[in-house]
């Protein structure tokens, strides 16, 4: 064995790298926690709150998916897009196409029944089809994102915004050209191509199965299944998206995006492949917007309607991102929740609600131009550091937070700083 100190140190650094299983588990555990939270929301909160608030919870979840996905392209990469509802519409219609015509083709329809109902229990065949449709919707939207992202290499700022706006409008017009949804009695014989041409047109896609419903999936007293685990699925997707956002933001890819946002020329000079970064941001954002659209398409009490998913919807999503703070994950989540709740809470002032909302938006923009959180996250705020962190330390100190929370690389850095340049301990001859 060699006594060369540099080689010893290298061996030590190597030993800090966790093995494959540990690293997979380490990156999977936030998702597991997210799934558990989603399950708890579904199983415990939803029955207690009643259908109205449970539906509100669903709306908030979907708003978070849409706003956080726009945050990737708008907040991280700084590419201003005001056609996000277009991606949502692409994903939603693709998913509705799969579940509606799919469940008819699979023969999941009670004889004589009109419209398509949910099929199978929790994580049963119906849920499998629904989850597949979410991914499919996301992929189709991601392809659209690639198509819109490519012009972003040529256009900047306002002009890019205009192109995304044009994209959203074109999608809306194209959807409006489709014919009425094929009646379930006849749809079994229709080919997928025919089905894709029958998306409901201007009236909207009626009869999509309501997999995203707030009522619990448990059976009621008569053994009849009453709903589907919509809150679980929605918040499972929310947690996956938020973890993806967080890991993106703290990775070198995310820093490349932030660099593009701050100064494209400087980023390029630093070796960032700006074209690639921008297109990747567009594709990712479009994928999750498509998934959000798929959730929206299967939500209870929602008819997928091209008019509703037009320019106005895109603007709603942009407002959430800007109000939350462009690039702040937690800020955008908070803004999405607040902006979904507020109109419901002020429902009794029906007529004055919108003017006040608009006025509040103008005032917030003048008084606090950087949005609620600016670029910071919740845990960066002075309030959080001063009050929540000490409290957390006090409560969880002994048993939840490990005694030595020193991150291995930090330990190495400390180790290195205590050595001379040649790797020998400081002060050694």
């Amino acid at each position, binding site marked *: 064995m060699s006594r060369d100190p540099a080689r010893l140190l290298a061996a030590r650094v190597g030993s800090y790298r966790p093995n494959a299983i540990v690293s997979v588990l380490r990156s999977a555990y936030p998702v597991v926690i997210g799934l558990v939270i989603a399950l708890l929301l579904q199983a415990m909160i939803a029955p207690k709150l009643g259908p109205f608030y449970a539906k509100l919870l669903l709306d908030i979840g979907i708003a978070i998916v849409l706003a956080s996905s726009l945050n990737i392209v708008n907040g991280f990469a700084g590419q*201003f897009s005001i056609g996000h509802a277009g991606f949502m519409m692409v994903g939603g219609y693709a998913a509705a196409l799969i579940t509606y015509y799919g469940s008819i083709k699979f023969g999941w329809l009670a004889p004589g029944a009109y419209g398509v109902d949910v099929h199978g229990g929790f994580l049963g065949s119906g849920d499998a089809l629904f989850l597949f449709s979410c991914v499919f919707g996301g992929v189709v939207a991601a392809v659209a994102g690639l198509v819109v992202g490519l*012009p972003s290499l*040529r*256009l900047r*700022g*306002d*002009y890019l*915004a*205009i*192109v995304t*706006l*044009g*994209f959203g*409008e*074109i999608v*809306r*017009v*194209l959807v*409006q*050209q489709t014919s009425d949804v094929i009646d379930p009695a006849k749809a079994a014989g229709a080919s997928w191509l025919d089905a894709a041409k029958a998306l409901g047109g201007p009236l909207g896609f009626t009869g999509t199965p309501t997999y995203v419903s707030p009522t619990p999936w448990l059976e009621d007293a008569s053994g009849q299944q009453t709903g589907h685990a919509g809150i679980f699925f929605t918040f499972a997707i929310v947690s996956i998206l938020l973890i993806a956002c967080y890991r993106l933001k703290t990775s070198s890819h995310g820093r490349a995006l932030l660099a593009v946002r701050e100064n494209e*020329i400087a980023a390029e000079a630093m070796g960032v492949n700006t074209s690639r970064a921008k297109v990747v941001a567009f594709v990712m954002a479009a994928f999750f917007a498509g998934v959000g659209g798929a959730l929206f398409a299967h939500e209870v009490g929602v008819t997928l309607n091209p*008019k509703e998913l*037009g*320019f*106005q919807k895109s*603007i709603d999503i*942009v*407002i959430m991102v*800007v109000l939350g703070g*462009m690039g702040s994950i937690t800020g955008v989540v908070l803004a999405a929740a607040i902006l979904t709740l507020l109109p419901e809470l002020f429902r009794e002032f029906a*007529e*004055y609600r*919108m*003017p006040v*909302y*608009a*006025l509040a*938006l*103008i005032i917030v*923009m*003048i008084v606090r*131009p950087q949005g609620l959180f600016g670029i910071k996250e919740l845990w960066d705020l002075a309030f959080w550091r001063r009050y929540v962190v000490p409290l957390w330390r006090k409560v969880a100190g002994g048993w939840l937070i490990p005694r030595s929370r020193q991150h291995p690389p930090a330990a190495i850095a400390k180790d290195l700083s205590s050595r001379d340049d040649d790797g020998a301990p400081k002060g050694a001859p």
Partner: protein
Amino acid sequence: MSKLLQTLVNSIALGSLYALIALGYTLVYGVLRFINFAHSDVFTVGAWASFVLATTLGFAVTDTPMYAMPLILLASMAICAGLGIAIETLAYRPLRRAPRLNVLITAIGVSLFLQNVGQLKFVFGTQPQRMPPLIEDRSLVEILGVHIRLVDVTVVLLAGFLLFSLEALIYRTKLGRAMRAVSFDERTASLMGIDVNRIISITFGIGSALAAAGGLLFALKYESIKQSADATWVLLGLKAFVAAVVGGIGNVRGAVAGALLIAFVEMFGAAYFSPHMRDLYVFVILIVVLLVKPSGLFGKAVVEKV
């Protein structure tokens, strides 16, 4: 042949309407470099204000006198000019140094505000209305079986008159020179003794007055006035905005050319292909033009400096 002529007449009339709105977008972009999303709502207010004036002054029931139309035109232009200046002073001026995105969101806020205040009971209400005919509905001449209506001629002549006056204002007067200077370089303009804030206010006023004229002409031509938060206004505003972009935003003559181009494409597409896809043609033209020439047909390419 008569179909061709009819489409031609329609597209010229529609193009002049688009031009009147597009100029507001392009003027504001010229001096402030941002997309004024509230502009289509100023146009809406113009249409509604002229309706309210016409009905309260009693032109709806009695025979319309000759002076009715100019009177209402001037009044609604004055109202909207005031509105535009008020919006600029209250909402946009505090954000002069803020990032452009904030100004954009503020403009959206102003747009939502105008739409929804317009829907209140004591303002314009939530019901669509019918504009009283201020101009006699008769055809002037008949060419190849196509009646050229007095309304269309009025729309085109009035729009043309306003456009030429604006052209004269911008290129022949001291005020216009100041506007061009602010648009060219705000900082240097203020060093040369130009009151930049005043010029920006005036620009907003002019753009809004033109939108008001467009609103009145729109109401006269199409008669039905939808409630202020209706999606048709937003779409109309978006198309006019597309016209401004296609012509090269910030360029006054380009906006007129873009408006005519958009109207021609829309009308001929609707007449000869599918009438349901008229919005599609407009936005496809937009994307094609931006991809081929990102600064618009008549815009100058901006060189980015480090």
